[in-house]
């Protein structure tokens, strides 16, 4: 595991872990019990058939009394049909309930993941989450559909068989029991060491998934640096690690399966020896010995099966553990207990009051007492050096993270007191990454307003200066799918779609993180013009790196050392704030052309 805050495998017993499946099993216990009953029934029919056949051969055929023969043959046919029917019923009954358990658990996991804060997602690799949501739940379904049922049925068979054995010949039953005793040791072993290995295999498989996912997403970078072979080596190394764990599992299971094969055989050998001795002493009859050995032979398969089912139990418990590790992470950004609805219509007064924010693993807060007010309808630019916390501050408004001290209010209400959905419905956001999906342009832009009309979408595409290139997309214009993360588009195109998405709802509050950085000069001017219209009606917080963007704002706040250093208009700050001047000063054209001229050896005047 190389996940930060990596979960420690719990020491809870498999049973305790699997008991947490209760809420999912309860609605389907009836068909599952039915399936177990059918399994048991089929087992009995299977045992009954040879007994009847024996009766046919020893009775009517041996004695020549053919009267009962048709009935007995009919009984074989009936038992045979019943066995087939019960076998069918077992799978038929178990299929849907177990698939239901799996799909419900996955749905709940996904819903939980959607509620978990961004901080959780920053820490957990998507590959690990994928492997838990798919592989581990498939493991659980298979366990419930097969091993769990067999474990119950075969334990029952073993107990019944041993019981019968005791009534026939206690002495021989004792031998059988002793030979079955190591099963307890095996169970203990599974509970302790095997479960750890099973867990390791699952974790390693999750890490493998992570490598695959990252390699595919970062494929441009890997190619640009020609590191495909290197990456393959890493992947193969991880796959080999997984393989050696899997081989270890094979070795363990091979050993155990061998043990389980040999135990009943040794029991039978013991019974032969003890029985032969007993018969010689006159304590036992030959009939007792034959009966005991016959029963012991029948019990061979259930014993083997229990061993297999126990190993599956450990694997399933480990998978279950991994599942609940995620489910047990608390969603920290939640709806308040007593929600206060925001004022309607929202005026959009945004205030940061003594806001502190600290990332859990950092020694000191990134934001240390930010005070800032954005008046209704005002556009406030947020300027600061790379890494000064602008993005973090902006993320506090839609509660992608919560302040660690202080508060953020909208129209006087703490954002943490508002229902999450209402808070987020009030605002439109654009992030530093465009965060697009492989869906169509239309679906991407309409993320916040799925019911948006084509005209509205077109209007917001126009604001973002995206109408032209979107219409040129082939084959479907706005209906064209844009590739994973929108990667088939250029950076500027992605950024414009993210901007269109933010302005589509005509929100009272806009939070834009450096919305124009990837645009070329021409497009930037165009977008700027259109954006000014939108910004006139909304309160906006705009993270800015460039003078153009800052100039668009009514006021600018300079972020430095975790605080707001100064607030004022672009011009005021240029005049009064040296830090701002440093941040905004662009290299003078003469100076660079000079450099170019120098390099070129030509003399020109700008």
């Amino acid at each position, binding site marked *: 595991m190389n996940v930060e805050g990596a979960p420690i495998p719990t020491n809870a017993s498999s049973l305790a872990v699997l008991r947490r499946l209760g809420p999912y099993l309860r609605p389907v216990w009836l068909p599952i019990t039915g399936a177990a009953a059918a399994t048991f029934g089929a087992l009995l029919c299977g045992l009954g058939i040879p007994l009847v056949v024996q009766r046919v051969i020893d009775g009517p*055929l041996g004695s020549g009394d053919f009267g009962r023969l048709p009935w007995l043959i009919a009984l074989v046919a009936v038992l045979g049909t019943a066995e087939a029917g019960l076998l069918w019923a077992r799978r038929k009954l178990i299929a849907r309930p177990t698939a239901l358990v799996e799909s419900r658990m996955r749905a709940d996991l996904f819903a939980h993941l959607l509620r978990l804060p961004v901080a959780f997602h920053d820490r957990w690799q*998507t590959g690990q989450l994928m492997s838990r949501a798919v592989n581990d739940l498939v493991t659980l379904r298979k366990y419930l559909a097969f091993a769990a049922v067999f474990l119950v049925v075969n334990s029952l068979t073993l107990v019944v068989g041993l019981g019968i054995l005791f009534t026939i010949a206690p002495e021989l039953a004792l031998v059988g029991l002793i030979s079955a005793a190591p099963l307890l040791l095996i169970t203990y072993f599974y509970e302790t060491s095997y479960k750890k290995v099973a867990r390791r295999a699952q974790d390693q498989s999750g890490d493998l998934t992570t490598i695959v996912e990252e390699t595919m997403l970062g494929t441009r970078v890997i190619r640009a640096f020609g590191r495909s072979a290197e990456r393959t080596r890493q992947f193969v190394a991880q796959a080999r690690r997984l393989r050696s764990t899997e*081989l270890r599992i094979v070795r363990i299971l091979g050993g155990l399966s061998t043990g389980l*094969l040999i135990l009943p055989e040794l029991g039978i050998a013991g019974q032969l020896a003890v029985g032969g001795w007993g018969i010689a002493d006159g304590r036992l009859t030959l009939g007792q010995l034959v009966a005991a050995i016959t029963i012991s032979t029948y019990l061979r398969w259930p014993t083997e099966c229990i061993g297999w089912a126990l190993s599956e139990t450990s694997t399933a418990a480990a998978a279950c553990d991994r599942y609940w590790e995620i489910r047990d992470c608390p969603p920290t950004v939640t709806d308040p207990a007593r929600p206060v609805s925001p004022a309607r219509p929202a005026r959009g007064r945004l205030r940061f009051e003594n806001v502190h924010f600290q990332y859990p*693993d950092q020694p000191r807060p990134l934001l240390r007492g930010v005070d800032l007010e954005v008046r209704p309808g005002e556009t406030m630019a947020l300027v600061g050096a790379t890494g000064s916390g602008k993005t973090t501050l902006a993320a506090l408004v839609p509660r992608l993270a919560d302040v660690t001290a202080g508060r953020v209010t909208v129209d006087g209400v703490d954002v943490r007191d508002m229902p999450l959905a209402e808070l987020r419905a009030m605002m439109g956001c654009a*992030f530093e990454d465009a965060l697009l999906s492989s869906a169509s342009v239309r679906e991407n832009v309409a993320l916040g307003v799925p019911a948006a009309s084509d005209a509205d979408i077109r209007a917001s595409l126009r604001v973002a200066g995206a109408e032209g290139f979107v219409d040129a997309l*082939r084959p479907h214009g706005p209906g064209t799918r844009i590739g994973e993360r929108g990667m088939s588009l250029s950076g500027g195109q992605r950024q414009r779609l993210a901007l269109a998405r933010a302005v589509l709802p005509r929100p009272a509050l806009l939070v834009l993180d450096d919305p124009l950085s990837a645009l*070329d000069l021409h497009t930037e001017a165009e977008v700027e013009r259109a954006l000014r219209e939108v910004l006139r009606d909304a309160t906006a917080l705009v993270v800015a790196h460039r003078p153009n963007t800052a100039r668009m704002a009514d006021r600018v706040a300079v972020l430095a050392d975790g605080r707001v250093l100064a607030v004022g208009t672009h011009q005021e700050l240029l005049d009064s704030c040296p830090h701002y001047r440093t*941040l905004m000063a662009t290299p003078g054209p003469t100076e*660079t052309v000079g450099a170019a001229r120098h390099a070129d050896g030509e003399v020109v005047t700008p």
Partner: protein
Amino acid sequence: MSDTTYAKPDEQAPDVTGALSAEDAPVLDKATQARVHARSRKLLGSLLRPWLRRSLLALAALVAENLGQLAGPLLIARAIDVGVPGAVAGRPGALVWCVAGFTACALIAAGARYGFFRLSGSVGQAVLLDLRTRIFEHAQRLPVAFHDAYTSGRVVSRLTSDVDAVRDLVETSLDGLLTSLLSVGGIAVLLLWLDLPLALVVLGTSVPLVLMTRWFRERSRQAYRRARNTVAEILVELGETLGGIRAVQAFRAEARAADRMNRLNDDFRDAHTDALHVVARYTAGVRLVGNVCLALVLAIGSWRVANDTLQLGVLTAFVLYLRKFYDPLDELATFTNKYAAAAAALEKISGFLAVRSSVPEPAAPAVLDADRPGRGRLRLRAVEFRYTPTGRLVLPRLDLTVPAGQTVALVGETGAGKSTLAKLLARFYDPTAGAVLLDGVDLRDLAEGDLRREVTLLTQENFLFSGTVAENVALARPDATDADIRAAAAAVGAHAFIEALPDGYDTDVSKRGSRLSSGQRQMVALTRAFLADPTVLLLDEATSSLDIPTERAVQAAMAKVLADRTALIIAHRLSTVLAADRVLVMDAGRIVEDGPPARLIDASGPFSRMYRTWIAAVGED
């Protein structure tokens, strides 16, 4: 998701997955099916061939185990018939021998079973590793555009759950298949030898069995195919939703994401329910045929015994063996089921492996001398390019020569073909016509490794991998020392901020570097590029997210770094452009202006207009 055609906009993904999506339907037409089956079988064969010897050994172990187990009942019978009476008579020798023999047989069987486990396990794991490596390597050979449309979730699905289905077949069902084939074959011979007419009754049941198997194979394959498709969709949905969780939460799209997931989830559930229902009918049917046959044999046999045309002993033996004949058929049914599951997975995997790369490795790569004089000369010779065979001509006949060591700035509006040109120079694509040459060698003739050593393309996609900052920088040159990494960072001006991170260069960048700002990620990416130290450096808007002081520092550093190498810079900031030796203005795939920046400013072309806009924009300072 699979019903829509994938993006084919100007600079976008060609329809590379089209052929594959045709195989996503649960019921395939005859021709497709035949092609897909043949391809899957071929793949399975090629996977197993290297392990033939070991598989045969496993088979031998299995035979030994079965022989050991078969001998057991014989020895028990002997113990009861001879040993026990002997012991009663005071001669326990025979009993002791029997017990000892029985124990020995059990031990042999157990040892053989252990051997079989190890052997089949190692074959299974070897096949798994081989298959995984093949898929992963192939994925990395496929063009970037393929991945845009195919998405990482599908590759994950091919490499995990599909591969697991194949492993399941190879590792666990070999046992069932071999054992059951052995016993069915052996017992069939025994039955024929015991009594021909009864044996014919038994063998007659093979007709319904074959029919059932055929039905089962088709139906279960459909169900499994559906399951394979939906599990891939689930992984895609997970990847995209979790990767974009900020947007999903901020735009309250959780409910819709959950709806989509639930639809897929339900589909997956139904596919599995379906699959198991099909298995239920098939295995129960097989058992029914066996049991009915038993009753039939018993009836006919009894009638013949009554008529004295059959000995009772023969019937007894026949009936006993019959049961043993049908038991393994269950195993065979299990095998058929696993095979169906694996076959559906193999279809997907082999389909993926069959996608040919549009930028293949050369068969006989050309060698570029590392010490050649004046290295870094680029030349485009009559290059034409379109993304798809029928698509728009993005670059119509482009000729361009860049002398070694020159820094070229590429400007023009979005869609002018700047990025396309950069991608051609980095061989992310091959030109539709003409050739791209580096120091006189066609890029198509260079081995991947050589090409990447010479040419590095830095795009806006500043993807960071999980690991530390240092590891991310070292991606450019895995053998780089800490000092090299620090030096590169210092050259770009990234050293200070990296040092200020909680663990400095050893700071974990977390998933996709979300904790570094985009400006910081660009700095890490730039550091990477400088560490790579290529002959030709291509920068596609590599500094767009930097604040101005940082960008200035980067520009100053770049002036030094670019001095002795060929560089092509795409930038929207004229400040960057002005530092170049030469500016190319592109419009609609053509170069409309070409010259040193200072001269172009004086001309009355598009570049001078751009320049004036820029001055107007920053002139207030």
